[in-house]
């Protein structure tokens, strides 16, 4: 009994230590990315712009179909609820303003974070893990090439652009879907419905939403890179690395979401 309790405590302690050390390593990795982006050119080793462009396509443009799918499906679900609510309360302007505010501030960034974790985080973790197993990372280090500058910093710079864009496009797609649904279901003019929803979005709401998207993107990159690069030393296979990266990325997104929501001004 006592041995079981001690064992459980030990496992919990080890888990806490690994989470803390993993978090610290992720912060250091993100710091290293920032450092390479800002000072790499001083040492004649700038982050490769061609690689940044490739990553913008990979993380941004190739995510568009998934974003569209999520936007239409969530927009439709919200529209059904709005129609039910308006039929009982007849309060369309307030409802749409609330939906606009809620979408850009809370729901949009969170869904964007989950999309990024599933698509970008898993891709990054599996690629780095496979490179780590095949000693490609070791070979880069052996040539004096920092893998963070060569492989991760381009994705970091790309995500600074694409992560807020993904959030914005998702919310825009949702509001557009709601407007069109209301037109076909209730005859409400789409421009009028869209205007009501956008009226509910303040500058602060927009900033909070975009900052959340940016923070989620950077956190997902840090977590996935950390897991992918250490795959070989942890003895994890690529499949297990990918699912682990998704779980940890989504956990990081949820924790960050709550933290930013609590700290952000109304």
């Amino acid at each position, binding site marked *: 009994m006592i041995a079981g309790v001690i064992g459980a405590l030990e496992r919990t302690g080890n888990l806490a230590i690994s989470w803390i050390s993993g978090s610290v390593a992720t912060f250091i990795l993100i710091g290293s990315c920032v450092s390479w982006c800002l000072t790499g050119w001083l040492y004649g080793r700038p982050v490769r712009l061609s690689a940044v462009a490739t990553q913008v396509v990979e993380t941004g443009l190739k995510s568009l179909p998934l974003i569209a799918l999520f936007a239409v499906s969530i927009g439709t679900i919200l529209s059904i609820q709005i129609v039910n609510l308006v039929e009982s309360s007849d309060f369309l302007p307030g409802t749409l303003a609330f939906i606009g505010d809620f979408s850009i501030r809370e729901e949009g960034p969170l869904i964007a974070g989950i999309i990024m974790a599933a698509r970008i985080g898993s891709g990054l973790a599996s690629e780095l893990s496979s490179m780590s197993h095949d000693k490609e990372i*070791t070979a880069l280090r052996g040539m004096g090439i920092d893998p963070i500058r060569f492989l991760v910093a381009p994705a970091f710079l790309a995500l600074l652009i694409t992560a807020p864009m993904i959030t914005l496009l998702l919310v825009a797609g949702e509001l557009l879907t709601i407007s069109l649904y209301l037109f076909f279901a209730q005859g409400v003019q789409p421009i009028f419905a869209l205007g009501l929803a956008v009226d509910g979005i303040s500058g602060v709401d927009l900033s909070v939403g975009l900052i959340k998207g940016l923070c989620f993107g950077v956190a997902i990159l840090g977590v996935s890179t950390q897991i992918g690069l250490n795959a070989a030393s942890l003895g994890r296979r690529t499949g297990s690395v990918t699912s682990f990266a998704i779980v940890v990325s989504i956990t990081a997104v949820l924790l960050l979401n709550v933290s930013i929501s609590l700290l952000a001004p109304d």
Partner: protein
Amino acid sequence: MTRKSEDIVLSAEGLGVSFDDRVVLQDINVNVQRGEIFVFMGGGACGKSVLFQVLTGDVAPTKGRVKLLGHELRDLKSRTRSQLLRKVGIAYQGGALLKSLTVLENVELPLIEVAGLKRRDSTGRAKEFLALLGLSKVEALSPSSLSMSEIKRVALARALVLEPEVLFCDDVFSGLGWRLQDKLFKLLLDLGEGKGLTVIVFTPALDVAFRFGDQVAILEEGCVIAQGPVDEIKTNKDERVQHLLAPKREILSSRRRVEPNAMSERSL
């Protein structure tokens, strides 16, 4: 004979590596002189790969110290390390080529990213090395579509393209066939002629060690059990060495050396 310290390109003193309680390497002492081909030879699980990782600075030793080209690896700051690595070429077991790049781009990589050449300058140089290694026809291919012999030669081209002072080869020559091995070593001797290229080979193949090595160190269970010129190793009375050499007598008797001859054969 006492060697001048500047002639020693790599030295390991009292080197030991342990993972948790498991001792992988113990008390390794070696000096590699400039211009020689030094072969670490040993069977499976003898500590060869870990020693390769330690000597190339990828794994820190638990005990002892490693000096490469006058720099102690343990104390290196990242900038000095980068500068040092410009003088070192490493050909990894299995190639470790970047699969997202073509063969040509893999060989160009150190020229662009380490030497800072523009692509228009790096392409010609990379193509020259690929031609030397008989790989011109595969330069546009992905590494995943190459044979193991081609992968090993591309790895060698990438390691040599910056004209390093020291070349580490992890199991690059075994399984290639004697004719190709001869040609590759001839190429290395040609490239190193006058520049003092030092080649450090890690191999499980006794024939590679005895046909091409100037100095050979035999590893067993994490220890160097014999070390010296090939002729000394052949006559070593240590029971473990004799046991290792016993099935390979025919190789010892057919030892051939390749001599450098100024690039007469431009491609393999």
